Structure formats: structure tokens, C-alpha cells
């Protein structure tokens, strides 16, 4: 990226502005964005297991935080991110391993399916959690 102090002299791959928008591109961007988001989510999951190990008082505090409305929103967003990264990641495994799904129309279709799946699956998980508890 010019102007941002890029000191590596090796050539860069073509950047965003030279690409025509397409679904697999959007899926790729969101795959990366959800990955980075879950990186920060991992701090929260770790905090939860540490609270569990620390005893009932710490767990009670964690429980109050988790049940706050904003935390529930974050939790739902986390579930959407996990479900998208999971579904889209499995698609990448099919690309990289048996090389299935490279046809442009199929690849676009699977991208759209993954978007839909992530929201529906997260909703299903949330509904299941409400019913189960």
C-alpha cells in the first residue's frame, strides 16, 4: 500500500480497486474479517474458562456479564462469525484438497449459501440454547 510506509521491496498482488465485485470476493473478505473478529472473541472464551476455574464468585461475575443485553448481541455476532468461518472454511478445504467447487457459478452460489447458512445456523444455535436452558 503506497504511502503507508511499505518497506518491503517485493511485488504486491493486485489490490482491491482493480477487482470487479463478485460473491467469492465478498466471501473471502468476510472470511478474513470474521477470522480477525474471532481472534478477539478468543480472549472472551478464555476469560470464561478462567472464570470457571477461578471459582463460584468469578463465574457469577462472568454470568452477569454474559446475560447483559449487549453481551448477548456480541455472543450472537460471534455465533454468526463462527458459523460463516466454519462453512466457508470447509469450502476452502474442498478447494484445496479434492479441488471441488472452482466453477465460477458454483463458487458464487456456495458463497451466497454460506452467508445464509451463517445467519440461519447462528439463529438455530441461539434458539436451541434458549429452549435447552
Amino acid at each position, binding site marked *: 500500500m503506497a504511502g503507508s510506509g511499505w518497506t518491503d521491496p517485493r511485488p504486491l498482488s493486485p489490490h482491491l480497486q482493480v477487482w470487479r465485485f463478485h460473491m467469492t470476493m465478498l466471501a473471502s473478505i468476510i472470511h478474513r474479517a470474521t*477470522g480477525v473478529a474471532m481472534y478477539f472473541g478468543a480472549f472472551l472464551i478464555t476469560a470464561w474458562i478462567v472464570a*470457571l476455574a477461578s471459582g463460584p464468585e468469578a*463465574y457469577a461475575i462472568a454470568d452477569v456479564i454474559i446475560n447483559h443485553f449487549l453481551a448477548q448481541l456480541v455472543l450472537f455476532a460471534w*455465533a454468526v462469525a463462527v458459523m460463516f468461518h466454519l462453512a466457508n472454511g470447509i469450502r476452502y478445504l474442498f478447494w484445496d484438497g479434492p479441488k471441488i467447487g472452482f466453477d465460477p457459478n458454483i463458487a458464487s452460489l456456495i458463497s451466497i449459501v454460506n452467508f445464509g447458512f451463517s445467519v440461519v445456523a447462528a439463529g438455530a444455535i441461539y434458539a436451541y440454547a434458549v429452549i435447552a436452558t
Partner: protein
Amino acid sequence: MTRKSTPMGSVRGLGSAQAGTEHFIHQRVSAIALAVLVPWFIFSVIHATKAGYASALDWAAKPWNAILLILLFSAALYHMRLGLQTVIEDYIGKSGTRQALLILNTFAVFALMAAALLSVLKIWIGSGV
């Protein structure tokens, strides 16, 4: 290891670091593990937290759950370290900032790893099962 660049190219830091393939494979192997472990965790943790602290502790203390939690945290933290490393290398071109962020990435992941694994072990050992 065979170098595909000329000696001068290597000295100047041009050409690849020759470590990409290993990174690529490790990212995917940890992904395969997570494709199994993450659905288990979500399903399992919903039931584990049904009845508050006591039920969550019981769940985490069971040896099989403790083993799967250790595998989950190890695979997830390794996978996210590799992933964020790629993001940093793609977007941060200034070498000092890049090195600092790469080191921070490593430290953050190891800190989380130590905290998570110690917690799982503490719960399991504390339960006496």
C-alpha cells in the same frame, strides 16, 4: 532447504521466505480439527451451562471434555495465530511495526494458551476424577 533465489536476492530479502507451504498446510490441518471441535464445543457448552456454575464445572472436569477442551484451545489458538500472521503480513508493510505486531500476535496467543490450559487442568485436577 533449496533456495529458489540467487544469493544476492537472499541477502536483499527479495523472493519468498520459503516457509509458506508449511504455514499453508498447518493452517488447513488445524482447520480440519476445528471443523469437528468447534461444533462439539458449541453444542456441549450450551448444555454444560444450563444449571450454572456447578453444572459447568462438572462438565469441564470430565476427562473426555477436558481432553477435548485442551485440543480445542490448542487448535484454535494455533489456527488464529497463523491467520492473524497472514493478515499482518498482508496489510502492515512498515518493517518495524510489522515485526512488533507479529511478536505481539505470538505473545497474545501464548498468553491465552497458558491461561486456558492451566484453567482446564486446574478444573480437572481439582475435581479429583
